[in-house]
């Protein structure tokens, strides 16, 4: 069984019903550690040693956050700047993360259509996640197909939200229990493409 670390970042979590639903679905799920970065480091002063230990203790690292200005909220970037040190995450002696997996779990304000060449966001979410993909590569990690929840502002349908959250949990369980064949993981663009494989 793989161990999952969710690095969660939302500056206004109290107003985010989408992320709340996603996290709630994971309650009492075995092998999952939810780490609320803004709650732990309200002034963004990150305890590097502690974070590195957490990374060592887990196999699948998840960045879960809303898409802000086509990237993550600031604390994720700060976390990367501080924690992914030379000699730890990369560099000649930096092998600590080798063989682990990195997954982005993204909620967007815009609709799925807006993230196309015709939409006002012009590109697919996966293209905006390129820096994360490259980060994973540099650290010797496998970058998993991202999980994206679109138009979180406008989801008023509680049942739909709950269903999505349930799928999220199923997918994480699949990853935790290594139920996805390597070639399917490779082929999938988004994590939800793997739902049929379950």
């Amino acid at each position, binding site marked *: 069984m793989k161990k999952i670390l969710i690095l969660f970042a939302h500056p206004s979590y109290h107003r985010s019903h989408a992320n709340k639903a996603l996290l709630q679905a994971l309650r009492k799920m075995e092998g999952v550690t939810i780490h609320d970065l803004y709650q732990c480091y309200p002034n963004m002063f990150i305890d590097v040693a502690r974070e590195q230990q957490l990374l060592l203790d887990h196999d699948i690292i998840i960045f879960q956050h809303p898409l802000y200005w086509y990237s993550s909220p600031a604390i994720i970037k700060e976390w990367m*700047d501080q924690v992914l040190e*030379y000699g730890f995450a*990369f560099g000649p002696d930096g092998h600590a993360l080798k063989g682990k997996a990195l997954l982005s779990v993204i909620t967007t304000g815009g609709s799925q259509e807006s993230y196309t060449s015709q939409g006002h966001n012009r590109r697919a979410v996966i293209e905006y996640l390129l820096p994360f993909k490259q980060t994973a590569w*540099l650290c010797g990690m496998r970058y998993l197909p991202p999980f994206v929840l679109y138009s979180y502002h406008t989801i008023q349908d509680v049942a739909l939200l709950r269903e999505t959250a349930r799928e999220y949990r199923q997918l994480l369980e699949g990853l935790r229990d290594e139920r996805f064949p390597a070639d399917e993981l490779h082929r999938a663009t988004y994590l939800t493409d793997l739902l049929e494989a379950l």
Partner: protein
Amino acid sequence: MMTDGLLFDAFIFLTAAVVSVPIARRLGLGSVLGYLIAGIIIGPYLLNVVGKTDDVMHVAEFGVVLMLFLIGLELKPALLWQLKGPVLGLGGSQVLLTTVAITIVSLLFELRWQQAITTGMILALSSTAIVLQSLTERRQLKTESGQASFAVLLFQDIAVIPMLAIIPLLAARGSVPDTAPTLGGWQDGLLIAAVICGIIFGGHYLMRPVFRFIAQSGMREIFVAAALLLVILIALAMQSVGLSPALGTFLAGVVLAESEYRHELEANIEPFKGLLLGLFFISVGAGINFTLLAHEPGVVLGLLALLILIKCLVLQGLGGVSRMNPAHRWTFALALAQGSEFAFVLLTLAYQSQLLSAHLISLLTLVVALSMALTPVLLILNQRFVQRRYEEQDEEREADKIDEHDNPVLIVGFGRFGQVVGRLLHAHGIGTTVLDNDAGHIDVLRKFGYKVFYGDADRLDLLYAAGAHKAKLLVVAVGNPAKSLAVCELAQKHFPQLKLLVRAIDRPHAHQLLQQGVDMVYRETVGSAVDLGVNALKELGVRANQAWRAGQTFKQHDEKLLREQTAFIDDESMYITKSVQYRHILAEMLQANQEDRRSEIMSAWENTPTQEEEPETQIQRPFFASKNHDTPNRGEK
């Protein structure tokens, strides 16, 4: 000789209370029943160790006066105004209907009509002392039934006054038609109005400066004396114009409910009230005439049952009309089904007016005393049998009414430290109850619109009065380490649900707090000293973010050291060793380690794969450069 007697009596009463009340409470009977039983035991029919209880009773009745003062303190004028409907409606109809019902029954017993009306009026009253004490103890005073009972009792307190006037008139049987009343009627009215106005205006405008003056002297016992003096003064003033002293002190309490001295007054009067009420209950118990009961058990018990039945029926009916739910209706009816302590006074008056025969008086006195003694029993039966049935029926029992003083945060000490905390919470819309013990200071704060109460917080009673048992957080921001430790100890012992956030004056104080098991300790100077240090670094040319990080690291590090050192406060050499050890670690972290690692990241970042190029930029560290000769920066090699 006299003092010997007094001391001996005090010894007997206190022993009886100390022995019987805890036992009664342990058995779930409540303190009132405990006192009553104690009274019966030491009374003339069992041990016969006390002399005449009449005088004691007189003193003890002052307990009722104090109790109403305290109740007034809890009731703000606005709240009292809300109660006007129940007081007049419920209270008025209870007194009227019960009087009528008992009068009719009395007529059936072939009393003359004057005697029947007198009996009706006297028995219509219920016992404020017993009811309020029992309901408070059972936490039922703030429920629907509790509030209704209170309203009725309040009306009865007012109704006593005309009764005192009517009974002598009835005795005169119209043969001496209204001489006295017409003569002084309007003057009396004027006098009464003047006294009541005096209480209201005096309480509002005069008492504050007086209490402030006394509080500034810093002598607690003088404050206690002043509080008692105030109550006695009002009682005397009310008596002099023929009004009920309890009513007057109640009014004074209401007037003072909004003053900053409310909690302190409450805490000071409370023990006196408790003891005097206890004494009152004991004397009721001791006064039960068992000889009469043994002589005519059938008559006495029959009358007792009749009295309780009539009162219960009327109250049940009233509860029904005012749409009380059945569970509350039962509590309301059973709580108020006894005779009153005023009955003793009125019966004596009726005897003096030769309205009722001596035998009837002693019979009624006994019935009233027995009915009072029975009330706690009825309430227990109500709880065990009647209420249980309704609890099962309706799942959602209504919650107790939340007093507006149920603030989640209690701040103790509102000086330069506490104020900042309070302002921040206040700006966030969080209700705080604030206690401070500097009267002059409170005055200034009140001018700025802060609700601050006067009081020394290292007293359990005061913490209770301020709602510590209902709050979530206790912020201890007092400036005196000893007092701060005392408050924390009290809170830990008596309010385990409270989370403590404590201001530490200095390092030794912080150690003591940590040793005492307080976890959230904030040294008052560290925050701003570190801020200053950070700016000093900045002025010396260190990049602002770098300096800020150094400050954060320092804070965390020092916090860790503080906690580790707590184990060695008695071992000086070990304490210093720890300190030195940590200082070295910190220096390493801040100067060499952290700096190097950061510049390593920055410079190594782009050249990882090849490691050949020189870094594009070098971080300028003018003041540290010279210190770091022996630890060359890898990025600069």
